[in-house]
């Protein structure tokens, strides 16, 4: 099996300790950094699909994301300045009043695995902070807001409205969280909704490609 195929398989299997060595071996074998990165992104797509269909669970997905992150660490120095394979920057956080980060962290990892540069604003993000982050970061293509509590659904609506009426352009707004539905996402005028972390990564890439 070519090393790059082994990288793919080990990312999928969540073998975080093995992936960096295999990535290095793939480079030594002559594979380009960009090619290896794409192979890992493809693996994470498979992982996301398996999660969405219930074939694997959160721990397996986390381990795969962790394995990919270790592989990316090896590639980073070789890809400095190369933005051709990036989907842009994603600003992510939970909306004002929401202190829960479990879903947000998972989505953040999956979105990063899909090829975004992620700027994580953390939890309880005030409306003006979203705007500041869009202005402060380059090539923001996606704003991902989560509201994990029913009580913060109005804050999610406010966050989306604030971002969309700011006059800033060039990005899409993705929403999610336990009480959020496609219907609610439509009501608050979000560009996209995802029910879980695996489909969030797919939706994120789809939204950005339509920009």
């Amino acid at each position, binding site marked *: 099996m070519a090393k790059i195929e082994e990288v793919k398989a080990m990312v999928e299997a969540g073998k975080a300790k093995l992936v960096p060595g295999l990535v290095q071996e793939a480079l030594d074998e002559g594979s380009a950094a960009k090619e290896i990165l794409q192979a890992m992104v493809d693996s994470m797509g498979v992982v996301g699909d398996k999660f969405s269909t219930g074939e694997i*669970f959160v*721990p*397996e997905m986390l381990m795969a994301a962790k394995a990919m992150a270790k592989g990316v660490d090896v590639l980073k120095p070789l890809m400095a300045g190369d933005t051709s394979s990036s989907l842009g920057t994603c600003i992510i956080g939970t909306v004002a009043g929401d*202190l829960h980060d479990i879903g947000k962290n998972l989505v953040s990892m999956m979105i990063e695995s899909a090829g975004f540069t992620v700027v994580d604003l*953390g939890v309880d993000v005030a409306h003006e902070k979203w705007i500041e982050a869009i202005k402060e970061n380059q090539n923001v293509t996606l704003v991902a807001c989560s509201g994990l509590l*029913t009580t913060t659904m*109005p804050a999610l609506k406010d966050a989306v409205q604030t971002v969309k009426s700011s006059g800033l352009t060039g990005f899409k707004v993705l929403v999610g969280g336990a009480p959020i539905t496609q219907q609610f996402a439509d009501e608050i005028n979000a560009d996209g909704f995802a*029910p879980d972390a695996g489909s969030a990564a797919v939706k994120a890439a789809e939204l950005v490609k339509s920009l």
Partner: protein
Amino acid sequence: MLNGGKPEFAPLLYELYKVCMLATNNTDQPWQGGKDPFGVNWVATAEGVIPESGKILFDDIADWKKYVKFPDVDSLGIEQMAQIELADFTDEKRKEQPVAVFNACGLFERMAAFMGFENTLCALIEDPDSCNEFFEAMADYKIACINRYIDVYKPDVIIYFDDFATARGLFMSPKTYREVIKPHHKRIIEAVTSRGVIFNQHTCGKCEDIIEDYVEMGIKIWDAAQVCNDLEGILTKYHGRLIVEGGWDTSGPASYIGAPVEAIIEETKRCAEQYGKKGNFILFPVLMNEKGHAFMTGDERIPALMKTWHEVNKL
């Protein structure tokens, strides 16, 4: 119904029990926020307390013995909490209303409180041996606390909280739950049921994949049973063996802040029709307002809900 008899009506959670929740405030997690006896800082939100985001005690479960110091159960004031909560609760009242004592932060949630969810979930499959060791020691602590609760509160029901699931399914595979958590969970359940106390398991989310395990281990009531599960199927399959406490569509319009009374009445009637009529059902409505849970913070829509329920809950 709690004793296995045929109920005349489906009860409403808030009218059913004499709820006692002060002891777990001292032994597990402070309801108002602040440090728990293990040193984890909890932050109060409108929907309950959670460990302070981004603050963990350790990130590798293999290190747990370095960081986890079990408190002396005698020092936790469980007796004083019982005295406060039961001060006006006479023997006469005991005959009319079962006493239910909360025990928050179960084994899985406790590990997440120490390590964060991401580290915890990875640990379950990366280092099951250390997890087993941790859960065994933590189960000993939980059992010691619960035994003390039973001594001093003399409860009818212990409500044990551990959320294993999201709205779309279990956090971990059923296999991982069964191999790593279940043996210790089972020991806690047996400690309760062996003393003649009913075990009420609180698990939000879509956890139907392990309901069979719950029933097999002796769990009598499943609390916060949410509509992402096949509640009608579960009520039918486990009739007489499992009481379903929940039923309210917590993600639906009746739980939105500012939901109109009409939506609440409609949801109340749906629960009665869909679940109440099957028996073995306790309604657990979740009404939200700006202050949090309406039944704890007060809300003018509650009387309409209760009036409706009392009209439609007869069996």
